[in-house]
């Protein structure tokens, strides 16, 4: 009753006052909704069982592509050593030294529809020491390689920040050492996690999931409202168990908190994950692991703006920066649940909660329309066209205009009941 009053207060005119109630009345009992969700789960399970994972090498693509794999520590060490030896030989023979670094520029990226992700083509550029423009990067590269060599010898993990602080004077700025770290992964042909360098924890998970973190069993229903931070290195994670029907991917921390506090996962058994904006490597690895092991459908709740869709694409087909490792980082088959541009009118979100898109937003939106991962899904193209045409965007929080709990009590249940995902 309390929230009904709230809703009434938020509503300005009698018309929109009745609307949220009208939507609520459309809701069927939870058991019916659960039935649809079970159907969704089983179809997801069968489809992932039927569709064998396609490897890049099976496709016979016209261009050669580069992919990295998880390597054990010893092989990382030996490849570093062979690189170091060749460098030393080159120097001793009076030729200076040079790296051949795979290019991670946009021109060297390729979207493969069969895999539904971005992969890196095999173009690479030389990084000679004896050149003013590349001397700095070449030096930093040797230094990073040496530091990683030490990590291999000692068999420990450090964060990217740790790495940066070992030689601040040379690196100057963490973005520089971070970028070179990705280059080193490419040079050595291994994933970033196998370099034993992790990023700080960013993502959180809550809901019907039990897993072991470094041997400790974690029950994500008993982690309070904040949930469990996703461990930065995925090797620690194992033994996943769950009775959830789906995974709910949330863009924003605020929406995640609302769902966690309302214990949404108890009404509809699910696992709720957020990376608080652009996802980091750990969250992407974790989501992929859940999807692969538990065979659950993934539904995404993002803002209705170009960046929401961009975040969705990073989960789905990878970022350009890390495309060399897209095989391990991407989660196929993510459904766009909301908030979609068409929802703005469908759920009669009041004008004052919608924002006009800026020039930059519209440009990003139009650029996205050219991207292959959007084009492959006609529903997404339609939604994006609608967004660009209406020039309006809205955040998940726009739903709070009908009451703070409208998201968990009306919007999401109704969306699930109507199977309104793309």
């Amino acid at each position: 009753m309390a929230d009904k009053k709230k809703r009434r207060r938020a509503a300005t005119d009698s018309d929109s006052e009745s609307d949220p109630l009208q939507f609520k009345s459309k809701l069927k009992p939870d058991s019916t909704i659960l039935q649809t969700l079970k159907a969704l789960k089983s179809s997801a399970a069968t489809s992932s069982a039927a569709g064998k994972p396609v490897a890049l090498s099976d496709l016979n693509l016209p261009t050669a592509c580069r992919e990295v794999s998880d390597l054990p520590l010893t092989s990382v060490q030996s490849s570093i050593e062979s690189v170091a030896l060749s460098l030393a030989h080159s120097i001793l023979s009076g030729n200076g030294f040079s790296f051949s670094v795979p290019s991670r520029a946009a021109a060297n990226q390729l979207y493969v529809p069969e895999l539904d992700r971005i992969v890196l083509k095999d173009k690479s550029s030389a990084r000679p020491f004896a050149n003013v423009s590349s001397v700095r990067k070449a030096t930093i590269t040797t230094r990073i390689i040496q530091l990683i060599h030490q990590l291999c010898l000692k068999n420990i993990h450090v964060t990217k920040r740790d790495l940066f602080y070992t030689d601040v004077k040379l690196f100057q700025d963490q973005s520089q050492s971070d970028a070179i770290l990705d280059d080193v992964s490419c040079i050595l042909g291994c994933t970033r996690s196998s370099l034993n360098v992790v990023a700080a924890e960013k993502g959180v998970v809550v809901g019907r999931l039990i897993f072991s973190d470094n041997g400790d069993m974690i029950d994500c229903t008993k982690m309070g409202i904040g949930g469990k931070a996703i461990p930065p290195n995925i090797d620690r994670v194992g033994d996943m168990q769950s009775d959830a029907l789906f995974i709910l991917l949330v863009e924003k921390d605020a929406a995640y908190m609302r769902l966690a506090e309302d214990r949404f996962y108890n009404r509809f058994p699910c696992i709720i994950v957020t990376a608080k904006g652009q996802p980091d490597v750990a969250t992407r690895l974790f989501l992929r692991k859940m999807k692969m092991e538990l065979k659950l459908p993934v539904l995404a709740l993002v803002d209705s703006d170009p960046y929401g869709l961009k975040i969705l694409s990073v989960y789905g087909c990878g970022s350009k920066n890390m495309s060399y490792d897209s095989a391990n980082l991407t989660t196929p088959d993510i459904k766009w649940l909301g908030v979609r541009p068409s929802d703005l009118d469908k759920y009669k979100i009041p004008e004052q909660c919608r924002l006009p898109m800026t020039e930059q937003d519209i440009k990003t939106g139009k650029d996205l329309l050219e991207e292959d991962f959007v084009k492959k899904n006609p529903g997404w193209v339609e939604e994006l066209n609608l967004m660009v045409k209406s020039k309006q965007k809205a955040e998940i929080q726009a739903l709070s205009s009908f009451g703070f709990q409208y998201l968990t009590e009306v919007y999401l249940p109704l969306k699930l009941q109507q199977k309104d995902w793309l």
Partner: protein
Amino acid sequence: MEIGGSSESPPETKKSKSKTPRKSKDAQLLKQKSPAEFFADNKNIAGFDNPGKCLYTTVRELVENALDSAESISELPVIEITIEEIGRSKFNSMIGLADYERVDAELYDDFETAKAREKRLAKEARLQEIQAKNAALGKKAKAPTSMKSIKSREASYYRVTCKDNGRGMPHDDIPNMFGRVLSGTKYGLKQTRGKFGLGAKMALIWSKMSTGLPIEILSSMKGQNYSSFCRLDIDINKNIPHIHVHEKRENEERWHGAEIQIVIEGNWTTYRSKILHYMRQMAVITPYAQFLFKFLSESPDKNVTVRFARRTDVMPPAPLETKYHPSAVDLLLIKRLIAETSKQNLLQFLQHEFVNVGKSHAERLIGEMGPDFGPKMPVKSLTSQQIVRIHQLFRQAKFDDPSGDCLSPAGEYNLRLGIIKELHPDMVATHSGSAQVFEGHPFIVEAGLSLGGKDVKQGLNIFRFANRIPLLFEQGADVVTRTAVKRINWNSYKINQTQDKIGVFVSIVSTKIPFKGTGKEYIGDDISEISSAVKTAIQQCCVQLKSKIVKRIQAREQQERKRSLNKYIPNATGAIYEILKEMSRSHASKKRRSEDKDAELLKQVSDKIVTEETLREKLAQHVEQVDYEMALEYATQTGVNEEPREDIYIPPLVAEYNFTEFHSPVFVFRLVH
């Protein structure tokens, strides 16, 4: 001309000023104002806002008149401006007023009450104490802060004198040229410097308002054996000159030109920099003129003398008077043209009073106007309705754009010289755009761009010119400022917007400059034709400079390459050696996977045959070699490079020769005897 007539006008005449408040029935009376009165009331629209600005505007009006006058007879301008400060007692003696001492001190604003005095003394004592303490502690002795001078609200007066070598004025016309507002020689459609055609008249009104002293004019025309002297002021109510002296004087050295002297209230301290900026920018845009600027103060240490020397004797041609473009006229203008025309019928009128209307075109236009019109109908007989129809057609019909032939831009050569002369920049580029059209008026945009130089601050320095006069006020909203700050991507031309000393010079000339605001001090940013022309002109300059900048960066890289490469050697070799050391250690213990070459290297490392020092030396050698090769390559690529040479201008020592001049609107033909 009738302006105003509003009820808010002050009492009709100044003489009959009554102390009693205006009675209500007075307000009912219909009053008329003379143009001089109107401008006296609204002097701010002509740039006479406050004493400081008045001084500035007076200087500027006189200088611009002088330039126009000299250019009109194709004489290289030589202009002397003198501002002389006049103290109160001197001023009083000038107007024949005895000096009065203050008797009742409390009557004045700067009177210090006993309480305030106490406070001030206490404060001074405290300050001295602190200073003594600081001195005792051996702290750096700060210069004793000068006591804030007691502010004086007393007006200061200046005598402004401007002398030129121009055309001079006909003896009999002088009174009307100065003593009657809105009468002038510069009316008509052409590119002119003047803002309102008010010129010296406004200065005269201001002098009358502030000092009451008359203006003095000494003028002589070429070939006259006398010079005219005139002392006059203006009767503001009647808008007629009030002549004190008007006489002919000896002119032995056959001088021609004009010397105008006026005494006004002003403020040198606050507008000093503006006036000097103005002179400097004027020198940039008119490098063919010679300016001598003097400020004479009562205390000689404040005197300023600046001389802006001539750098060229190439003068832009005098702008031509042109006819109106059909799309630029309004109803009033058509009526005026009809009233003034000497043509009899409509066809001739259209054909001869407008540009870009030929005979056949005029006939087609008349046919389009409707059955009431015919080519032979007398033009003076047109009714108001018919004129409206003509106006409508002018708006709708298509006409060729007016050409820019009637304009007189400064020219790239002059702009470039001016920039080099006044700023001494490291690099300079100029561009002159082609004529474009806005609302039927042609305009030309020229731009100059300089990097470095003396007296230039870091970042963007914007110099704006409209019809070859500098614009100094309201810079923020101006189209040039906006374009340079917002629409030029300086980075892409290798120019650092905040660090480099960038001079942006944009000169716009037009038969009608679309000024914004009352002061006519800036051109609005909302005219896309002009803003895009400005952008293109600046970009063209940027493109020219970019290649020079890139070359310079390359040269610098050339010099610094070895140093910046060597800087990183210890880091790189240290890292590689560290790995080798670790490897040799484990290699020695485990004896694993030993390829010959690698094993040998590791053995050398563990035996200290190969050390970090070895790697360092080898890498340094390599850098040395690469540097040598690249230096060689650079040298062969660029060859012996020399900066392009600038033409220098050497003023002739003796310019005295006899000649006869034949004038035409576009050139002057000199026959040297």
